[in-house]
């Protein structure tokens, strides 16, 4: 069995391959190891940079440090238990993952989801998109040297996390979207909490923009940095705000509407500046569009049940369980032996804050998924990173990295 190369060995092998300088004036190459514990790699990403002076000649990515075997674990769990695992894939966009998995299984079951559940799903997913973009903006600005936006962003993110806690009892790992609807009835007074936040929020976005857009350092560090062509991005599997910043309105919410997104009026934010600054503009615009969607959901929330009428799949109400024999039996059966899903396969996509999530769920007719493959946006996006870094300066690599907004849990699963 081949032993893993130590870092020194790797450096030696790279040095052996690299051509020796022909004359004393020819540039000497140097290999620099960045990560996996580098604070600006946003997780455990290791990049081997080959440098010529300050210029990056070659970037090699090394991922897998956060691999937890979630796909294997899914195969040993009941369909309803997998929901909690999908939370942990992308911990900043857990609801998008919940939603994608739930939609995939519902498609296999051919379940009809009541409108109120669909609209609540959309509202919460959009709130979590805002929260995710806020984390991105705060940390990205911090990486480049602007400290203040971080505090502003986390102040608003805290409000969103409080709303999540109100709905589900959890701040981050909510598991609120379940197969067949929602985990719990939306709490009393949620309209007040969401309304208060969403009325104040657009002004907050203006505040962040004021902090950054008027700042010459921010502009110098972001404009014209981290270029990658649209053709390269599509070829390498990059999705999300990265592609939209290059002018292509590629958005699953618009192209293949799910969970009644077609009933909402919103625009796909695009920019024609294919650099770090353009991606920043796209995400700021997306926060505004998300706020619009949340407002529409708040105002037009349809009445009705929050779970599908499918007693074999959806857990019964607590009250019914104590008074009705059938409800008790169904509850016992779902908890102890799960629900059976007809054999088949489905590939369901949703738009997460980072790009296209795709869940490929294969069922063999039992109550446990036969195979769950997660097409995660960060995994696809990271393949485009070397293209972005090569040819740039090492100081710009942090800006380019940050503009991609990847989550390593999402990459390694």
């Amino acid at each position, binding site marked *: *069995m*081949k*032993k*893993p*190369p130590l870092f020194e060995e790797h450096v030696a092998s790279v040095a052996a391959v690299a051509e020796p300088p022909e004359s004393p004036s020819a540039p000497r190459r140097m290999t620099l190891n960045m990560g996996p514990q580098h604070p600006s790699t946003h997780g455990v990403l290791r990049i081997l940079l080959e440098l010529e002076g300050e210029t990056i000649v070659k970037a090699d990515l090394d*991922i*897998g440090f956060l*691999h937890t*075997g979630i*796909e*294997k*674990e899914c195969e*040993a769990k009941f369909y309803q238990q997998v929901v909690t695992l999908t939370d942990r894939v992308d911990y900043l966009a857990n609801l998008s993952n919940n939603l994608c998995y739930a939609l995939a299984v519902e*498609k*296999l079951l*051919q379940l009809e989801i009541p409108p109120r559940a669909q609209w609540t799903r959309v509202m919460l997913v959009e709130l979590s998109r805002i929260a995710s973009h806020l984390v991105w903006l705060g940390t990205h600005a911090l990486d480049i040297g602007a400290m203040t936006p971080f505090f502003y962003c986390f102040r608003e993110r805290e409000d969103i996390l409080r709303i999540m806690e109100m709905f589900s009892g959890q701040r981050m790992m909510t598991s609120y979207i379940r197969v067949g609807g929602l985990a719990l009835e939306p709490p009393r007074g949620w309209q007040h909490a969401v309304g208060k936040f969403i009325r104040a929020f657009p002004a907050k976005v203006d505040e962040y923009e004021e902090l950054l857009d008027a700042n010459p350092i921010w502009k110098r560090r972001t404009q014209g940095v981290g270029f990658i062509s649209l053709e390269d991005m*599509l*070829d*390498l*599997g*990059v999705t999300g705000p990265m592609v939209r910043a290059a002018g*292509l309105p*590629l958005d699953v919410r618009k*192209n*293949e509407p799910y969970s009644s997104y077609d009933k909402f009026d919103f625009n796909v934010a695009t920019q024609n500046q294919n650099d770090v600054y353009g991606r920043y503009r796209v995400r700021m615009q997306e926060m505004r569009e998300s706020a619009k969607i949340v407002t529409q959901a708040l105002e037009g929330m349809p009445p009705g049940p929050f779970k599908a009428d499918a007693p074999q799949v959806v857990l019964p109400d607590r009250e019914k369980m104590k008074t009705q024999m059938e409800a008790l039996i169904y509850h016992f059966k779902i908890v102890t032996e799960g629900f059976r899903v007809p054999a*088949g*396969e*489905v*590939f369901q*996509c949703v738009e997460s804050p980072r790009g*296209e999530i*795709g869940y*490929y769920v*294969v069922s063999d007719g039992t109550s446990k998924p*036969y*195979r769950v*493959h997660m*097409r995660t946006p960060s*995994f*696809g996006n*990271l*393949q485009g990173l070397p293209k972005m870094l090569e040819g740039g300066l090492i100081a710009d690599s942090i800006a380019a990295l940050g503009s991609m907004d990847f989550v390593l849990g999402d990459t*390694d*699963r």
Partner: protein
Amino acid sequence: MNHPAILETKQALGELTLIAEPSQIVSLCRYLKDGEKFIRLSAVTAVDWYPALAQDGARFEVVYHLHSIERNQRLRIKCRLPGADPAIDSVTGVWRGANWYEREVYDMFGIRFLNHPNLTRILMPIDWVGHPLRKDYPKHGYKYGYGNE
């Protein structure tokens, strides 16, 4: 869509699936990308049908998810591979983005992709023994055993 590599076309749950001949996967993908405008490769993965199909010489299914922005359509290609030394041509020449996905399939299922530029493990450590997503691989790995010893 008309290509000699397509063995069967299936439409289920609103999704189109092509069962393809593994030896001609590159020419089929080239045709779908250039002729049918499926310019995006969304994902590559595999399914292990052990032990049900292990005898039939079709233990593994390699699954490609394609996406056409122009036609706003998704497409799935499946290739069946035998259990003993499964190998298929790499499509990295068609979409460079297939690189990591094929490495992941190699890492998790032990399916070799021929003519791949860098077919090494991607998620598991380099010295890992076995391919975790195979169905005959124990959930807790080979290193630790629980219960009946």
